């Protein structure tokens, strides 16, 4: 019982690092389930969907999913802190327009126009971040508002116009393949770099530990010295920058800057993140799951499109996956709870039949 003094006890107790074997830790996770599903669907499609094995499939899949993959990275962090950003697609639209205006109307060079667009994306993120982190407003409500605001500015600025006269060099860059003829567009390089950066940020940095702590218990995080406001602000800022980058890619890929570019992408991004195993309440999730979630959506849509199945069915499948993915978690945990309770009861059966059989020691002093 007695406690040894602080200085002596170092080797009194030893602790294992992990309670479960490595394989268990790797395979028994939400993330792994999604990755397994992705692999399964991919190989099923590879074997059974005509033309899925063609050289263009992966190329188009990555090109189509690139903006969602990119934005899913910061969105994962935002959702892990328990917040949400619905305005990302509008930021894409606005940066797209700014790129067009910067290049076409202001006559900026392409790199300068890109910088301008990125700055606009950053400012958008900062506005969200300020309102959520420092003013303390609910992010769902704030970003519903800023979603309309940013989109409105984008559409307002460009009106009916579409700016299309971008320099070929740049629009080609957006669709270029790595090494000239592989299945991988160059945007993947940007994605991989960002993914590694975000993975380090989230999983291997003090900042990332703070992100999880804020999502699980922001009071404790504050007591521990995590700068809750600043962290949230930074994440919204990052979401703004990356959305801006995605907006630039989008514009160059289609060679067309329009106010309504990338409309409704926000729900796809969020669906992908949640499908990847991130909890909407915050505190749980990992980037590899999210990337698998995005790719799963990409593979399913691509395969179904190749089968000439309509978008509607694709949407039903994605919606169904989303619902199932949250429900399965809840069902599994309630089943295991139930089992635990049963086990506890079996250990100590409720003595309902026991009736005043023995002398009652609780009674002896009762004054009546």
């Amino acid at each position: 019982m007695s406690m040894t003094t602080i200085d002596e006890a170092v080797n009194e107790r030893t602790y294992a690092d992990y309670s479960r074997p490595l394989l268990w830790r790797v395979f028994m996770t939400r993330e792994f389930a999604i990755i397994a599903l992705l692999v399964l669907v991919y190989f099923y499609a590879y074997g059974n969907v005509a033309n899925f094995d063609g050289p263009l499939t992966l190329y188009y899949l990555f090109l189509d999913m690139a903006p969602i993959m990119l934005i899913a990275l910061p969105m994962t962090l935002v959702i892990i802190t328990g917040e949400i950003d619905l305005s990302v697609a509008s930021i894409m639209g606005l940066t797209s327009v700014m790129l067009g205006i910067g290049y076409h109307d202001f006559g900026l060079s392409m790199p300068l126009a890109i910088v301008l667009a990125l700055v606009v994306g950053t400012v958008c993120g900062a506005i969200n971040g300020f309102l959520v982190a420092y003013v303390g407003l609910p992010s769902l409500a704030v970003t519903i508002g800023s979603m309309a605001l940013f989109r409105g500015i984008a559409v307002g600025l460009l009106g009916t116009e579409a700016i299309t006269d971008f320099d070929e060099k740049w629009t080609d860059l957006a669709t270029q393949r790595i090494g000239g003829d592989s299945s991988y567009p160059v945007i993947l390089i940007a994605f991989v770099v960002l993914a590694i950066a975000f993975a380090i940020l989230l999983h291997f940095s003090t900042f990332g530990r703070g992100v999880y702590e804020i999502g699980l218990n922001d009071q404790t995080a504050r007591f521990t010295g995590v700068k809750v406001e600043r962290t949230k602000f930074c994440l919204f800022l990052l979401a703004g920058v990356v959305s801006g980058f995605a907006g630039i890619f989008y514009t160059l890929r289609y060679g067309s800057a329009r106010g309504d570019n990338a409309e409704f992408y926000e729900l796809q991004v969020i669906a992908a993140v949640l499908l990847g195993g991130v909890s909407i309440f915050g505190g749980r999730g990992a980037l590899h799951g999210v990337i698998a979630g995005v790719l799963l959506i990409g593979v399913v849509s691509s395969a179904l499109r190749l089968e000439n199945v309509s978008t509607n069915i694709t949407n039903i499948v994605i919606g169904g996956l989303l619902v199932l993915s949250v429900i399965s978690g809840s069902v599994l945990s309630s089943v295991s709870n139930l089992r635990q309770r049963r086990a506890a009861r079996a250990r100590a059966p409720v003595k309902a039949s026991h009736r005043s059989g023995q002398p009652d020691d609780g009674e002896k002093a009762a004054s009546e």
Partner: protein
Amino acid sequence: MTNEARATLVLRDVAKSFGAVAALRSATLVVHPGTIHALVGENGAGKSTLVKIVAGVHRRDGGEFRFQGDDVDFDSTAESKAAGIAVIYQEPTLFPDLSVTENIFMGRMPHGRWRRIDRHAMVAEAEAIFARLGVDIDPRRPAQGLSIADQQIIEIAKAISLDASLLIMDEPTAALSGVEVDRLFAVARSLRDEGRALVFISHRFDEVFELCDTVTVLRDGAYIDTLAVDETSADEMVALMVGREVGDLYPKTPAEFGDVVLDVSELSSRGVFRDVSFQVRAGEIVGLAGLVGAGRSEIARAVFGIDSYDSGRVRLAGKDVPRSNPRSAIAAGMALVPEDRRQQGLVTESSVTRNIAGVIRRQFARAGVLTTGMENTAARPWASKLEVKTGALDMAATTMSGGNQQKVVIAKWLATEPTLLIIDEPTRGIDVGTKAEVHRLLSELAGQGMAILMISSELPEVLGMADRVVVVCEGEITAEIDRSDATPENVMHAATHVHGHEAGASTTDSLQEGARA
């Protein structure tokens, strides 16, 4: 036997575990109509858990539960309410957006024609209950912004309005002033005289002696004994609660005091505390005493930088500590073990490692980058020094007992190797053994020259551990008493008297005079 058949409530050998924590092992409680039954036990003895089982919040894992002669097994609080059980929970549970009246009648609002709720009838009844309790609360105002005491009163009003045959009160008086307590007791007695059964939980023995007929003692989730209040003494009750000599619990070793480490001067925060000044020296344990709600935790939070303050200054080892910036307080050498372990101390769903390394990770990370391996390496010695009982470092804190969780929190803060340790309710909800360990640890740390500011609502703990007692009442410091001069009487007196006027009425004196063990 016949006696028990007439009992309102019979609980026997009730067991309840939360994951790895066994909150109740074999608890027994028999309550008769027309009596007020005290339930006592240390923090974490399982009193509240027992109450929640009776209320239908938790379901027991095993044991017997009879109410008015019938075997029952409540699935929800609605069922227990319907059966005639009213409960005042330890923590007020109010709906901040709804009016006081609605809070009282929620779930059973009377309605008239067209299923329209009858607001007039509710308000009238609420006013009647408030009149009976002798308090002046506008029944139409929203519950948001009520003081803890007012919230507690509403809990009481809620329970009384239920017209139940069993009324359970889990520490209802913790935040009340003398007059309010008096009124409550008068109401409780009249309910008893109507033939209802009451269960009263309190840490204040004077109240137990004044109000109750019978007392049941719990220790570590197990039944110890049931006594008639007339036939027992406070000393006997304490012996039963603690299970050994009380002296053991407070292994205070005398220490040399060094320089002033913490210097708080004229700290004020509007509506929370005023003109708070005190000092803590190296090697000294300063106890911050007072009633629940006096504002001690708020002072600690302001000093540490969680909350801001309006004026005054905080200095640590002669240097100013910036306001509302916990990270610079930590850098300056402060550590704060907060009062609410689950909400403030731990990320309960996170692993032991991550919790322990939570503060120091910024030190061992290289350019902000770290790995789980580095965290394990950093956390392991501290887990070991505090003898945290856990299977592996990646176990979530949820799986551990309260005492172990508290050790994790202490480990997390000691790992920062602070010069000043602020520890708020160091032993709340932990078992007797661990309690003694924590006390010994504090003593040792002070012996090694650490300055310690200890906030505690347990007078014996304050008296047993502190070198100096600073008493807070309604946000003001009302006394500073040396260890040698400190008695339960003078501390309690200061805790209930603000300068000039009295917090309660004159009856407070007589109430507190009964003093504590």
